[in-house]
């Protein structure tokens, strides 16, 4: 599906790259005035990885929303499927294809940029492998989160208010607007424990070495626990929704 609209993908890619360069230019100017404990190259890497996997965070499924609004979801209810897992798989597949297709060219581009603008090398080979593992866990976690958002949509029908709010929480607390590593240190201790930080922040920290390899099991364990917890919450939410579902349309 994604490969059918190459023009749109390319346009989106250029747009993301532009945002990345602007953000890095701002951080460079800020660093010139007052260098920080975290090296600039880690901040630029943070920005590029965030831009590259942006689609993973925000790929809401308009088709499912339409189904809920028009009542077409009734057909899905008739299928002999476990609805939660069906949508979980669907959301995950969309996020995976959407982000990989965009991330690869972007990361290649970012890696070619000069030092201080582009992507730095991973802290070590184990760090790279662990960050890939973290990214996969992040994908599981974000899909579970989005399924909860969908469950909210089934309740309220108009997704804009609630979804806008949840999206914003996502953008801020996952480090897309401002790298979480630049938040005040006292906030970071709390923010990094929240589910939103598990999506991209944890893999990025593993990549740059902010989370040392020895601390990786702890970080991965937090990711796994959140994923399991969010899936349980989502499942329960969907089950109650199915029990008192009012179908739209006629």
């Amino acid at each position, binding site marked *: 599906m994604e490969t059918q609209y190459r023009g*749109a993908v390319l346009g989106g890619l250029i747009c993301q790259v532009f945002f990345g360069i602007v953000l890095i230019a701002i951080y460079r100017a800020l660093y010139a005035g*007052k260098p920080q404990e975290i090296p600039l190259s880690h901040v630029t890497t943070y920005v590029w990885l965030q831009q590259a996997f942006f689609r993973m965070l925000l790929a809401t499924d308009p088709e499912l929303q339409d189904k809920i609004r028009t009542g077409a979801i009734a057909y899905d209810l008739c299928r002999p499927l476990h609805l939660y897992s069906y949508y979980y798989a669907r959301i995950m597949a969309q996020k995976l294809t959407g982000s990989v297709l965009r991330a690869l060219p972007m990361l290649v581009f970012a890696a070619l940029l000069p030092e201080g603008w582009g992507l730095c090398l991973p802290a070590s080979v184990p760090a790279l492998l662990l960050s890939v593992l973290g990214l996969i866990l992040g994908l599981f976690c974000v899909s579970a989160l989005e399924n909860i958002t969908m469950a909210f949509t089934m309740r309220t029908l108009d997704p804009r208010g609630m979804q806008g709010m949840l999206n914003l929480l996502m953008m801020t607390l996952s480090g897309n607007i401002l790298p979480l590593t630049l938040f005040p240190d006292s906030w970071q201790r709390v923010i990094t424990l929240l589910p939103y930080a598990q999506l991209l922040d944890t893999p990025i920290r593993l990549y740059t070495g902010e989370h040392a390899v020895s601390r990786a099991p702890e970080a991965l364990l937090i990711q796994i626990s959140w994923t399991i917890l969010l899936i349980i919450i989502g499942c329960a939410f969907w089950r109650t929704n199915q029990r008192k579902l009012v179908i739209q349309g006629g």
Partner: protein
Amino acid sequence: MNTLRLYARSMAILIKSQLQYPLSFLMQTIAQLVMEGGEMMALILLIDRFDRLNQWGPGDLYFFFGLMSVSFYLTEIFGRGVTGNFPYMVRTGQLDTVLLRPRGVLTQVLCSAADPRRITCIAVGVVSLVIGSNLAKITWTPVKILLFAETIFFSFWLILGLFMIEAILCIHSVKSVELANTLTYGGRSACEYPSDIYPRPLRVLFTVIAPFALVMHVPASVILDKPLFSWPKWAAFVTPLSGLILFGVMYLLFRKAMRFYRSTGS
């Protein structure tokens, strides 16, 4: 004059119609507030960590941020027809009905939509302007107030002009074009900060092609008593005109593009 009255009347009706669903409207305005508040929080956190950005102190940065928020979202409220609806009108063929009526296309497009939810974003911008003005200890004189009003006025035309690029592109290629977002939303994000912090290519982009620097940053820096370039003070009154010039050019291109318009409707 007649056109202006028509526009004012459409705006009144559109805003009234949005207020017919007060709860939904309230939810959405709050979502907007949280969104713009989040942007401002990022600025606050950055200032907290870095103290200043080149020669710009915290007050200056809040002032630049507020100026951008107020003008960008004013454009989104009153120019929604161009900033949001136009690509949709082209895609669905709705534009055909517009062509039949005895009024200009752009007038009708502008009259077709308003987005009053953005009012909370403007509120955030105003708060940021007030904080900035206090921290930077701006002494407001009648001249400065006049300059400020002029800046907001021409920023509106500049941003509307940039959104027209998207309108022009989508007449040619039907699919809404994400690329144009680099100048509009990208320009907004970038030019929340004074443009002299950027490397040369970006500075040229935001001075010559999308003249945010001329329309906003030059007058704002004069208001802050830290002129951006070593230009005479009266120059700050002249440079914002480039916003209207950009809009004029885009208007001519838009008229040209409309001749290529092929309906998609059935």
